[in-house]
């Protein structure tokens, strides 16, 4: 039953994603909302607002500073989780063969 519900949910979600795809603006469309409002603002104002001569840096570190903070935290968390998992695996395998604990 649970399996049926999860498959049904997945199917529904896929269907919704396919349906909403047709509502997205066409790729490289110059009339899309992002190209009309967001990009010109970055291109015209980023130098005087942030003092950075590079759009990419201005967007990455200034307009979207929160986003980059989140990215850094994600990298740190992912690294921490990997290290913890690998260390836990090592401790488990130490315990099995000899039964000796340090």
């Amino acid at each position: 039953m649970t399996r049926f519900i999860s498959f049904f949910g997945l199917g529904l979600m896929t269907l919704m994603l396919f349906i909403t795809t047709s509502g997205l603006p066409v790729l490289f469309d110059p009339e899309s909302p992002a190209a009309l409002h967001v990009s010109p603002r970055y291109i015209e104002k980023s130098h005087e607002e942030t003092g950075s001569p590079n759009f990419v840096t201005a967007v990455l570190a200034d307009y979207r500073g929160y986003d980059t903070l989140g990215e850094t935290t994600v990298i740190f968390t992912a690294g921490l989780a990997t290290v913890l998992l690998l260390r836990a695996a090592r401790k488990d395998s130490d315990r099995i063969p000899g039964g000796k604990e340090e």
Partner: protein
Amino acid sequence: MNRRFGTIVLGTAFRFLVPFIMVYGMYVLMHGEYSPGGGFQAGALFGIAVVLDRLVQGEEAMLSISGTKAVILAGIGTFIYGFIGVLTVLLNGNFLEYGVFPLDMIEGERHALGILGIEIGVTICVMATIIAIFDALTRREEW
């Protein structure tokens, strides 16, 4: 990687390579403001320099940073980023509004300094994460 892997050829080649990788990483970090590059890329370069050293020289590596230290370092890098944000709030600005630093510079230079600060944080975090994952993977041969 605890055993020494390098032969004399690898050892010599790596001695030539690693300083250039680190200088290039520093360039990518410092010049990220003006050209493509930035904290993530510089962190990857520094991380690769240390990983190469560990691969070739094994336990006698010059740039050896242990896994535990690397995880602490990654935390410090993330903390630097967040701390700069908190610092701008304490100086009556918005979070990560670099213009509020009380320095005798024009607005743009203060922004550049703030961006450099957070990029250094990102660099330390990425470098230490790469080293920590490498260390955790290669320590497994001690089983």
